[in-house]
C-alpha cells in the first residue's frame, strides 16, 4: 500500500492510499471520491507528462509519498 499526494496548487491537496498495481484510472476514481469532481474531469500529471488511465502506478514508478499534480480537463 502506498500513499500519494495530489496537489492542484489552488488549494486542493489530497492524500490517497492505494495499491501499487492500481491503474491511474482507479487513482482518479479515488481522488474523485475525495474531492467531489468527476473522475473523467481529472488529469494527473507529473511535469508535462500526462498520465494515462490504463497504466499502473508501479509502471509509472510512483512510490510512497510521491507528489503528483492535479489538473482538470
Amino acid at each position, binding site marked *: *500500500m502506498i500513499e500519494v499526494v495530489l496537489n492542484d496548487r489552488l488549494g486542493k491537496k489530497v492524500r490517497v*492510499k*492505494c*495499491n501499487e498495481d492500481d491503474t491511474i484510472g482507479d487513482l482518479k476514481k*479515488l481522488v474523485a471520491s475525495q474531492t467531489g469532481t*468527476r473522475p*473523467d474531469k481529472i488529469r494527473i500529471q507529473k511535469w508535462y507528462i500526462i498520465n494515462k*488511465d490504463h497504466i499502473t502506478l508501479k509502471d509509472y514508478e510512483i512510490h510512497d509519498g510521491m507528489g503528483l499534480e492535479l489538473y*482538470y*480537463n
Partner: protein
Amino acid sequence: MANRTDPAAKSIRGTNPQNLIEKIVRSKIYQNTYWKEQCFGLTAETLVDKAMELDHIGGTYGGNRKPTSFMCLVMKMLQIQPEKDIVVEFIKNDDYKYVRVLGAFYLRLTGIDSDIYRYLEPLYNDYRKVRRKSPDGNFILAHVDEVIDELLTTDYSCDIALPRIKKRWTLESLGALDARKSVLEDDFEEEEEKDENEQDGLEEEVAHEKQDYYRGRSPARDRERDYRRDSQRHRDRDYDRDRDYDRERGRGRERDRDRDRDRDRDRDHYRLREEKEYGYERDRDREREGRERDRRDRERGRRRSRSRSRSRSRDRKRRARSSMSPRMRGAEDGKPPEESKKKKGKKEKDDGTDHLDPEIAEANRIRASLGLKPLKL
C-alpha cells in the same frame, strides 16, 4: 468578438447561455479549429447546413480533451439562440438523425420542463444507430433512443452538465403533462389477447415434453407450473416467443431447444440437491433463477455448454458479494486464508472493511464501493 453571445439573446437560467457549458470545456471549444474556421458567423440557416454534415456525437476526447464538432455546434446554437420553432423543426425532421439529436440536445439545455418531455419523448421511437465518440477517441455504437434516454434521465451527457428538470410525475401531478403513453402499449395489449388464445395449447405441449424427460414429478416442477400460470410470466414468455417468431425461428426448432434446456436444468437440479448446505428455499429460488436464465439464453441463442458452465460458476460464486468486481472474484480464493490469520479468528470480510485501523477500513470501504480490490498492506 466571435465568442460573445448575441446581444439580443435572453439569459437562460439566469445567466449567459454560453455559461451552460462549463469554463474549461468552453475554453477548449473556443480554441478549437473547427469552431474558428467553420462556426464563424453562422446564422440559423447556415447552421442547418453544418448540422447536416455532422456524422457523430460526443463530448471531449483524447489526451488533451478535444471537443467534437457536435459540441461546437451546440455552443454555436447557444450563442445565436435560434427560435423555438427552428429547434422543433430540427427535432421533427426525419431525414437527418444527427440534426435531430442536435436539436434535442439544445432543447434539453434551454427548454422548459414540459416542452422537454413533450418533444423528446416521441423520439424514443427512433431506434436508428448513431456514432458516438468515446473519451478515448474511438467510436462506439449508440442509438437515438438511448441518447434521448440519457438526456432525460441522467444529468451529464457529452461532457456538458445538463440542467435539472422536474421529474415527470411532478409535472403530471401539476397537470402540465399527460400520463406517459408508451408506444409499446398497443403491442402489450395484442400479446395479452394472444395469451388467452394460446395459453391452453402451449400448456399441453410443455407438459408432454416434461413427462418425456423427468423421472418423477418433483415438487419443484409442480411449483414451476404454477409459476408458469402467473400472468407476469405469461407475458414474458409470450413476449419472448413473439420476438423469436419475429426472428423467424420455426416453432419446431424452439421446441427442440426447449427440450435441451429442460434436460440441462434437470441435471443442474440434481446437482444442487446433493449440496446439503443449501436449504430447500434456495433450491426453489435457484430453480426460478435457472428458468429465467434459460429463458434469457434462449433469447440470445447461447450454446448449451455455456449455460451449464454459467450455472456451475454461479454455484461457486454464490457467496460472493454483488459489489465485487470480476477481478476481485478471481482473487477471492487466495485471499481468505491470509486475512484470517490477520483477523485473529474474527469473521473476515473479503474487502478488508473491518480492518482494525479505521483509516484503512474506511479506505477499503470506498474502494469496495468503486469496485476496486482492497489495499494490500
